[in-house]
């Protein structure tokens, strides 16, 4: 057999061993999970040597414990406020269930939990009930998870630090009658989110080291942006939220206002106030250009 052929055979055997070990290390059932891997190369005692003080299974279990502990610690780093809200036991149960259904595939841990809010929504205990008969606390938990995940993505994603976003004074100098001709484009680092709970206030309280309780429901909109590599969270009005959702960098302010009006979403304060709002958004680096 050629060397290439031998290497392929070796890779096949290696693959079989590695599939078994990965299953054994990552399965929620611990190392017994490896036995459920397809075509296992044998029992653990046949594959792993014991040491002077540990059995084969105990040696393998070091890796299994480490795998789960490491990823749970990553979850705790990504979702510190969610950890506070749920308590460690429930938080880890949710995280482990998620990891079982969504094992990591990327070399970066930034995307480890990308589907976690959706997973929480899909597995909420009252998922099968009509919306009006559901409990409210899962909504708060899901909102909080969404917020903390977005913060991570904004922190590590593209920002405007090496670009020249509009300055507040640039917008302030635009004559009022010309504001309608501006073409606002949100920065890649900006996110607009709607929540059923003031989760941003809850998160701030956690960061201050307080022990906040679950807040009362309150619909709110926030814009998350990044300025000089720091993440900003600001609450905005529902109308401004709709405006930013609509802004696509291709339509003028006038066209956006018309589009919103056609949807029945109107700002009673008019375009004059909008210039001040655009200035404020520019100060938060929400806009890439106008």
């Amino acid at each position, binding site marked *: 057999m050629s*060397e290439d052929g*031998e*290497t392929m*055979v*070796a*890779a096949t055997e*290696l693959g079989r*061993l*590695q*599939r078994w*070990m*990965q299953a054994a*290390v*990552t399965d929620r059932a611990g190392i017994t999970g490896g036995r459920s891997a397809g075509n296992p190369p044998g029992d653990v005692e*046949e*594959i*792993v*040597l014991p*040491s*002077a*003080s*540990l059995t*084969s299974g*105990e*040696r*393998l279990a*070091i*890796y299994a*414990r*480490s*795998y789960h*502990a*490491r*990823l749970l*610690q*990553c979850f705790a*780093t*990504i979702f510190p406020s969610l950890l506070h809200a749920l308590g460690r036991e429930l938080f880890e149960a949710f995280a482990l269930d998620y990891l079982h259904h969504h*094992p*990591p*595939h990327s*070399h*970066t*841990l*930034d995307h480890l939990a990308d589907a976690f809010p959706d997973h929480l929504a899909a597995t909420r205990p009252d998922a099968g009930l009509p919306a009006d008969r559901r409990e409210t606390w899962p909504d708060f938990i899901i909102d909080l998870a969404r917020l903390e995940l977005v*913060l991570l993505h*904004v*922190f*590590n*994603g*593209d*920002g405007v*630090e090496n670009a020249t976003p509009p300055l507040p004074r640039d917008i302030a100098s635009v004559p009022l009658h010309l504001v309608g001709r501006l073409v606002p484009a949100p920065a890649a680092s900006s996110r607009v989110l709607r929540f059923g709970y003031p989760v941003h206030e809850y998160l701030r309280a956690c*960061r201050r080291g307080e022990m906040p309780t679950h807040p009362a429901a309150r619909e709110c909109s926030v814009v998350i942006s*990044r*300025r000089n590599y*720091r*993440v*900003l*969270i600001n609450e905005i009005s529902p109308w401004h939220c709709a405006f930013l959702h609509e802004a696509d960098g291709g339509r003028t302010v006038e066209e956006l206002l018309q589009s919103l009006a056609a949807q029945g979403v109107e700002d009673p304060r008019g375009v004059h106030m909008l210039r001040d709002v655009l200035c404020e958004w520019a100060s938060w680096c929400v806009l890439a250009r106008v």
Partner: protein
Amino acid sequence: MTPNRLGYPHLGFGVGLRSVHYEHILREWPAVDWFEIISENYMDSHGWPRHVLRRIAERYPVVMHGVSLSIGSSDPLDMRYLTSLKQLAEEIGAVWVSDHLCWTGVLGRTTHDLLPMPLTGETLRHVVERIRIVQDVLERPLVLENPSSYLQFACDTLGEAEFIAAMAQEADCGLLLDVNNVYVSSVNHGFDPVAYIETIPPERIVQFHLAGHTHCGTHIIDTHDGPVINRVWELYRFACRRTEGVATLLEWDAKIPDFAAVHAEVLRARDWLESDSVPESAAEEVREPADAAAHACRGIDPFAGAHPPLVPVWSEDE
């Protein structure tokens, strides 16, 4: 005649760059010889970590140390990962790029751990072939580290040092000798750490790692959470004499003290090499009581020889 290091320089005594020290480094610009980064912490970052790295790379030599190359996996090499790795290396002028002799996952998954290789002639050929591909892509010699490990496979036909020596020669790659890992694995598997170091070709060694660990009574876990113990210092000096000195880096990934304390620990390496005495404040091995070992080691830092979470902590504008 020993120094060769594939032409890589002796950088002196470096420190692993960790986010808790960013502020101090940017404020004080400490007199450190060089920094080592965890490649994956920066490859996909377009935010503060990457910005800090760029600034640091303007002033210090930087070496890239990866945890996700998965050189021993039976999965195909991840070309997207390699391209990103190369891009970062070029951007910051990395002096060299290293990773571990291990695998991290199969079937497209990753465990984010450094899993041990079965050590056979077949797996040796598999790894050598993949190192050559990686070196072709990166257009530079790869440097690979001996991992700490907690198990050995029944199918092993080679010792780890023997495997690594052959791998380095056949793939023409460099080696990062983690002296602490040699010690950890020697206790876990019952081999002679001095014989291990004697087997490693000294002219291939580009870098040393030093770190602390946790002795659980029945085994040692490579936790990178404390000072270097005396036995590891002794092995380090032995290894240094064989290589006539190469770049040395201290890893501290959990319970990280302030920057000055981490830097002081690696400077003990320099003092240790220049004197015959044990470095001041060198730590003694601390063992958990045997009956408490199982419990204690369930609760210790979980990184077990891998590296800390790559997830950055975001910061909110006040």
